[in-house]
């Protein structure tokens, strides 16, 4: 364990673990906020360096390790680092607005930071997992801490959302663990220690019986799909996303779901010899289209702001599944672009809820209307988020969806790609309707000067605009780049 990538793979999740403990021990809210800023910046910077290292070819750690820095995990690691950083930076603003909590009043803030950093550390480790067993342990580890965060407000609705999340995702992960036991049984004797590494699994899949391989794959795919939030096993998602504190909602939607999806992707790649490559692609496409089909009707309904964003997560996880299922340079480039663009736009949308709920407390359970007169700056941020998520050009999500659908046609999945275009168009129209009728309509709401989080959301809006435009420009170069070539080789 002496090479820099191998060391980095262990330090990246360790830093937020240590940081979370130190922040929880800090004596005053002011010192906690300061330690939070320092801890978040250092943790995210190191994770960013690790991701860049892996992407430019430095991450060539041997695969039979518990944690591995590789090119496929790098974009996911970078996204988890970015969303975690932004969520940590906006957390003090959220905590200033929080009036009651799941935890005892005197220690609520410390518990929040401790749970948040434990969650972030586990999320940073998931893309680095070099072994299916460790990946399962990490994903299951995210459940406990994130359930506490979902219920942080202590409201009845938050308790309901947290409990549902805990129960449903644990049931899913239990099913997935049965698939892991089947794979462990099929591994050659004597390979117990690293028999579940991605490379060893690939070898095992080549020699195990087809019925056992298919059963293990289906148990793993179905079980992990519960945590990714793919339809039809997504029931926890709208409740948890809408009830969690906004910084946690961003982590759930933009970091947790894609990180678990990476585990599904790695598992599918490893088990393809047992299941058959066309079958693996078909299952991803089926889950993708079904998730889109389930999400679209909700994007047309008048929903509370965070619930609307939650259903948009279901839609975008469907788009990512389609990209993985289609495969090839265009679709893989689309996946990387979509992953990043979705993370930025969705996080901004959730952060906007902090000032929004002060201006309009009813917006936590009712659709937003006529906000333009109350706070044009906030409307600009929310519109940027919603416009980007809907795929309105020049949003990078427009280009990523074009790349993914083109990849589908190039790979010969004409019917799937055509149906995806139809569903994406419907989804776009639904969100555009909310944008025009809800956010941009004029209303007579009161204008308040002192709104906590307004300044932070403005800064995030500026940063998000720059990043989204940069991503849109990158779309032109990404499909032919070395990074995508490397990822396509890795995923073929």
């Amino acid at each position, binding site marked *: 364990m002496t090479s820099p990538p191998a060391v980095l793979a262990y330090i990246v999740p360790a830093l937020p673990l240590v940081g979370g403990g130190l922040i929880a021990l800090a004596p005053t809210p002011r010192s906690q906020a300061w330690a939070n800023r320092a801890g978040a910046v250092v943790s995210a910077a190191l994770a960013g360096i690790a991701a860049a290292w892996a992407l430019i070819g430095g991450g060539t750690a041997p695969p039979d390790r*518990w944690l591995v820095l590789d090119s496929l995990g790098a974009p996911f690691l970078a996204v988890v680092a970015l969303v975690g950083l932004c969520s940590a930076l906006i957390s003090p603003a959220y905590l200033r607005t929080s009036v009651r909590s*799941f935890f005892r009043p005197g220690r609520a803030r410390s518990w929040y930071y401790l749970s948040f950093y434990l969650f972030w550390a586990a999320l940073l480790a998931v893309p680095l997992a070099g*072994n299916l*067993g*460790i990946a*399962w*342990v990490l994903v*299951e*580890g995210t*459940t*406990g*801490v994130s*359930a*506490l965060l979902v*219920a942080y407000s*202590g409201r*009845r*609705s938050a*308790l*309901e*959302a947290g*409990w*549902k999340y*805990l*129960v449903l995702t*644990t*049931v899913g992960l*239990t*099913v997935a*663990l*049965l698939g*892991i*036991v*089947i794979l*462990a*049984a*099929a*591994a050659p*004797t*004597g*390979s*117990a*220690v*690293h*028999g*579940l590494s991605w490379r060893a699994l690939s070898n095992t899949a080549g020699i*195990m*019986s087809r*019925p*056992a391989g298919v*059963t*293990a794959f289906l148990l793993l795919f179905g079980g992990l799909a519960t945590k990714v939030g793919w339809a039809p096993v997504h029931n926890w998602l*709208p*409740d948890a996303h*809408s*009830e969690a504190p906004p910084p946690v909602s961003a982590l759930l939607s933009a970091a947790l779901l894609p990180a678990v999806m990476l585990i599904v992707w790695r598992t599918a790649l490893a088990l393809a010899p047992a299941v058959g490559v066309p079958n693996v692609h078909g299952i991803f496409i089926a889950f993708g289209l079904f998730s889109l089909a389930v999400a679209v009707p*909700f994007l047309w*309904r008048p*929903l509370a702001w965070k*619930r609307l964003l939650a259903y948009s997560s279901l839609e975008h996880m469907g788009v990512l599944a389609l990209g993985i299922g289609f495969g090839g340079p265009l679709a893989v480039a689309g996946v990387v672009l979509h992953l990043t663009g979705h993370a930025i736009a969705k996080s901004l949308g959730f952060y906007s809820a902090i000032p929004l709920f002060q201006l309009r407390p009813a917006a936590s359970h009712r659709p937003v209307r006529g906000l333009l007169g109350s706070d044009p700056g906030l409307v600009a941020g929310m519109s940027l988020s919603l416009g980007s998520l809907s795929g309105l050009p020049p949003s990078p999500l427009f280009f990523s969806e074009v790349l993914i659908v083109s990849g589908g046609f190039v790979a010969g999945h004409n019917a799937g790609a055509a149906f995806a275009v139809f569903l994406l168009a419907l989804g776009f129209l639904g969100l555009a309707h909310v944008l025009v009728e809800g956010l941009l309509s004029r209303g007579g709401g009161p204008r308040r000067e002192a709104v906590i989080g307004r300044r932070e959301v403005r800064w995030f809006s500026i940063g998000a605009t720059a990043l989204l435009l940069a991503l849109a420009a990158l779309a032109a170069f990404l499909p032919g780049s070395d990074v995508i070539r490397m990822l396509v080789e890795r995923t073929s």
Partner: protein
Amino acid sequence: MSVAVAWGLVTLGLLVVIVRRRYVAIGLVTAQAAALGVGALSLAPGRSPEFLIAGGILLLRSLVLYALLVFTVRRTREPRPLRAPVAPLVRVTAVVVLTLVVLALMPPLGLGSRSAEQASVALVIIGISIIVARRATVFHLLGFIVAENGLALAALSVAGGLPLLIELGVTVDLIILVTVAVAFHERIFGEFGTADTSLLRGLRD
């Protein structure tokens, strides 16, 4: 693990589907987990030292979870018994039929013995059925533990077992999860005056 022990574990799981009192259900699940641990320790002499440690972990886990659950139930006495929406006989019949159908359709999974495979899958189905069929939060927790016991039985049937680090990770995760679920149980009880999950139905679209 012998065929009799494996199906004995399944019988204990089915009893949890039927019983009404939380203390009795906790006792049954603890007995199931302890039997697994003792069974694992009895198999250890012919296997690796890791197997011995795994058996010890299973036994310890059963005691920790028992203490945690009994402590919690004592702190949260229900004002009146929570009746499941379906009668016990109907519940257990439905679970048995579902389990038999799944076992009939299930291909060989490649674990040590066919009976261990069937008993493991049966326990996972019974655990999930307990979560679906019962209203009390404590029964949901017991459903998790029954399903995890099924997975532990499957892992013990694998020739080399699961890697020790993963066994440890799974155990730590389960204990963390049950601790978090217990915290939820207490908060739900404090907020609603009962730990009845049928009251958690306010969020709909």
